[in-house]
């Protein structure tokens, strides 16, 4: 089993998605390269260690020294095991689930034995109690795997999928009617421009109304955003200025569809429309290390803002990011020097890897 984020990341899992649609759930090992999974393992093992220390200590005050003893045994194994799991992640997850579980359990006990052998010379305690630590290791690892399986079922794609579907980005009716009105104004005088505008509108709504549960290349999202901004330009003319800085954009990065468009819609609605003077929206997209950054800025004015609508779009995107990438994606907003900024960071998932 694994988190749903991983589910969507692997586009090769289309068949899996169709199985899911029939409400079946296949167990699979968690993605050990996912930061959220690693953190959960660390947390749970350490909580167990603390519990054990409290159980062993004759008085609560003495639990601390017990914890140090236990940590000396637990922490090296924990870190080595995690490193091994990260390294072997792809191999382990390709195995059938039962075999994968056996491999993980075998791996941790093997590492335990290895550690005991290495440290055996120096620490008598470690050597004598190998059987005990092996049993404890097996129990803890088994419990963790059971927990991830349960968590996977709870976040079962069917459920997450239903949430994703409910979270599909929506376009403001305000935009639709104003755009249609703008196109109508072109039909008699500039039929060609009207044609282009209608084509853009059709493309935009094709995406909005389609199934957006799978990740799509960021270049496609950018194209969509351009079409959207062209339509807004039609209405707003020179009041709307757009600055794209995407020379360093990783074209093959995958993102949830309609990740940026709703943010641009917010930028126009709250940043440009309430102003008489022209305003600029800027979009920076670049990759840094293994992450993709998208930074959107628009003019911010105190007056005449309806924040509820803005929050709704932001929460929607935040939740979708979480469903796709768990703790690895962030969305931050800030206001500085009369500029409103949204900064999104997502893991760099390449289209070819899918």
């Amino acid at each position, binding site marked *: 089993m694994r988190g749903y984020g991983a589910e969507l990341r692997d586009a090769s899992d289309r068949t899996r998605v169709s199985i899911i649609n029939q409400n079946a759930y296949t167990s699979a090992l968690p993605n050990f390269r996912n930061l959220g999974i690693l953190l959960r393992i660390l947390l749970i093992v350490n909580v167990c260690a603390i519990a054990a220390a409290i159980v062993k200590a004759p008085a609560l005050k003495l639990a601390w020294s017990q914890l140090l003893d236990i940590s000396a045994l637990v922490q090296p194994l924990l870190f080595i095991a995690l490193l091994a799991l990260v390294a072997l992640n792809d191999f382990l997850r390709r195995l059938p689930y039962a075999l994968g579980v056996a491999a993980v359990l075998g791996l941790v006990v093997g590492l335990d034995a290895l550690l005991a052998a290495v440290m055996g010379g120096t620490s008598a305690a470690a050597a004598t109690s190998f059987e005990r630590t092996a049993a404890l290791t097996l129990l803890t690892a088994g419990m963790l795997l059971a927990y991830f399986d349960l968590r996977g079922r709870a976040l079962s794609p069917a459920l997450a999928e239903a949430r994703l579907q409910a979270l599909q980005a929506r376009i*403001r*009716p*305000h935009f*639709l*009617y*104003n755009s*249609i*009105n*703008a196109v*109508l*104004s*072109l039909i*008699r*005088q500039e039929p060609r421009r009207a044609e282009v505008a209608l084509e853009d509108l059709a493309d935009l709504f094709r995406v909005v109304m389609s199934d957006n549960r799978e990740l799509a290349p960021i270049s496609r999202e950018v194209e969509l955003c351009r079409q959207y901004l062209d339509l807004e330009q*039609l*209405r*707003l*003319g020179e009041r709307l200025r757009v600055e794209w800085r995407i020379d360093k954009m990783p074209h093959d990065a995958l993102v949830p569809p309609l990740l940026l468009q709703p943010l641009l819609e917010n930028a126009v609605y709250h940043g440009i*429309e*309430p*102003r*008489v003077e022209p305003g600029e929206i800027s979009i920076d997209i670049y990759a840094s290390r293994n992450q993709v950054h998208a930074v959107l800025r628009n003019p911010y004015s105190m*007056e*005449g803002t309806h924040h509820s609508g803005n929050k709704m779009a932001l929460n929607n995107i935040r939740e979708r990011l979480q469903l796709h990438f768990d703790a690895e994606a962030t969305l931050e907003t800030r206001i500085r020097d009369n500029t409103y900024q949204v900064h999104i960071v997502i893991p760099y998932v390449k289209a070819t890897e899918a």
Partner: protein
Amino acid sequence: MSAAPLRVLIVDDEAPARARLNEVLADCAPEIPLEVVGEAATARAALELLAATGADVILLDIRMPEMDGIELAQHLQKLQQPPAVIFTTAYDAYAIRAFEVHAIDYLLKPIRSSRLAEALKRVGSVRAPSIEALRDMSKDSPAFLSAQERGRIHLIPVEDVIYLKAELKYVTVRTQSREYLIEDALARLEQEYPDRFVRVHRNCLIARAAVRGFERNNVEGEAQWLVLLDGCEEKIAVSRRQQHIVRELGRP
């Protein structure tokens, strides 16, 4: 309706929307004699055009920067003969509900020529929306006060106001550059802008932000506080009942 063509003013911040209205109005022209007297992209420009050319009816977009259509309509009511107002909007569930409640005419964009023609035919026979109804519809307090002088409407940004003083039938609005007379009630203004103005006397509200300090004065042996205000020489007396504001607002 008289035989003279109906004089129409178009107000919308989006150029394509104005162009579209022009076309649809042209489509209505054979049925209803009319003439477009001007187009404005902002409420301010609309007031200037109105003063210069006059109009029988104004097609007014609701969502506009700086001042929305609903606030503009409120200021228009100050005119002796305000033009009829037909609101236009693409989508604003809140405003539409309010229009229905108050039976105010509005058109949904994209606007059909048949609907526009109907609305234009009703001009003159329907009652103008009351200023109270319009106030009721605004989500925010108006950003401007308005004064009517010789058929023109002057807009006074609320943030420029130093003090408001009630005279017999009017309220004097003092800004750094000049004074205006507006038809309004001090109590209502106090209620509308509680954060901006504070009452220092039965007949006077001052802008909190303009307070520079206070001064002690003896009038006929009786001590009295005076407020010193930024941007104006005049000192305003604080009444006995309102003396607590001296402590609240400043260092005497």
